[in-house]
């Protein structure tokens, strides 16, 4: 499902196997417990997380086939992903998505929930597919889209044309930080970036708090953070669903 490797101060989380890495309850649980492991590591506040994947897909979104066979599981998957994203947003370390394959819908949200998005330019795209498959988009997805994509025209293109965004397009739109010639080069670049960030030093706990403030609107939706609570003192906990 997913593997965790530690290289010095870099935590490398990988969605393993050649499949679509659909975000079903099992994979979501696996990812959450791995993130928790990372969080509780003593070196966590001086480290960096890199998330990547095997194969053709970063993640092709929720397990829609599963949801169709058992509709109550869509609520479960949504709740588990919200918790995972809330965990990523509060993680006391910078996060890098090394996108080496397609990231669609919920999978695209997962990629974009990272602080840095590095992507291969030769294959793969970011794709908010909902319009093409007649799915409404959860409000909390939109909150992330609005925070991460600055240009109104780019937001429109991503959400209202269901654009298949290549790395180059992503760089132009300000969604992707940089593009590389292959999967391997993308991961190498993520490792180099991670090492640079580690060298800069800094307190991961402060970093995590600042990120929560920046992505406050997303947290309002994912963990029901009270909009009126002051962001500085409100110590956001991972009070996501206990599912």
């Amino acid at each position: 499902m997913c593997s965790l490797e530690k290289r010095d101060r870099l935590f490398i989380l990988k969605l393993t196997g050649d499949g679509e890495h659909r975000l079903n309850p099992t994979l979501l649980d696996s990812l959450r417990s791995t993130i928790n492991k990372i969080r509780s590591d003593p070196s966590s506040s001086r480290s960096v997380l890199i998330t990547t994947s095997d194969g053709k897909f970063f993640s092709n979104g929720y397990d829609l086939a599963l949801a169709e066979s058992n509709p109550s599981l869509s609520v479960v998957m949504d709740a588990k992903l919200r918790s995972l994203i809330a965990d990523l947003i509060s993680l006391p370390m910078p996060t890098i998505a090394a996108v080496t394959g397609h990231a669609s819908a919920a999978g695209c949200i997962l990629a974009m929930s990272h602080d840095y998005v590095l992507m291969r330019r030769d294959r793969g795209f970011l794709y908010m597919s909902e319009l093409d498959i007649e799915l409404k988009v959860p409000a909390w997805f939109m909150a992330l889209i609005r925070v991460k994509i600055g240009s109104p025209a780019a937001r429109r293109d991503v959400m209202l044309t269901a654009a298949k965004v290549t790395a180059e397009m992503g760089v132009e739109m300000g969604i992707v930080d940089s593009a590389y010639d292959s999967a391997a080069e993308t991961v190498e670049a993520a490792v180099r970036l991670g090492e640079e960030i580690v060298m800069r030093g800094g307190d991961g706990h402060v970093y995590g708090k600042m990120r929560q403030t920046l992505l406050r609107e997303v947290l309002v939706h994912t963990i029901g953070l009270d909009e009126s609570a002051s962001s500085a003192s409100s110590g956001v906990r991972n009070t996501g669903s206990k599912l």
Partner: protein
Amino acid sequence: MCTLEKRGDLFHLTLTGDDEHRFHPDTITSVLSLLEQAKSQSTKGSVLITTGHGKFFSNGFDLAWAQSAGHGAIERMHQMVKSFKPVLAALLDLPMPTIAALNGHAAASGLMFALSHDYVFMRKDRGVLYMSEVDIGLPVPDYFSALVVAKVGSGIARRELLLSGKKLKGEDAVALGIVDSAAHDSAEGVVEATVSLGESLAAKKWNGEVYASIRRSLYPELCRMLELTVNNLATHNL
């Protein structure tokens, strides 16, 4: 005044006549009813293209009509500002992609009307965008500013549009990220380009309800001000 025509998948809303296409209570009612009509006739793959005849797309509210009431002028202005909100709401709620093909100048509420579309194409050779309020000494309604903030990202562009009193030509508007294109040299050229875009969007056969719901969720602040509900209850739609 204005007409609605259906050609294939494309609805053509046209502000007819060679005048300034100013928004007056009657035009507002007309436009609203035509948008209602388009909504009720919409199917998968429908697209709206709005354009005008002559030198103006629309030059804003009918200030002469307001002023002709003497002491009642302010009342009439309020009436127009209030009754225009549903026009923008109807556009933001329309269950199909919307494209404004600017044949000429768009000022004040006329510019807001244009900006309420998903895509805005201007002419390269003629026509300006002009928020005249700062020159006339008229306050800008809150929902106008909310629309500008929703559709125009850069602080500099917002300032140029709302505070500078500048008449922005096509090239400037594209550079500021206010419009999508100013590449064509005539009204016909712009309409042709928008028809081309319209046809490629129509070919996707998108579900209009889903499209409108995603569009509303792109602009939650603006929708709140226009009293449009932003509901994205997707969990049971997974």
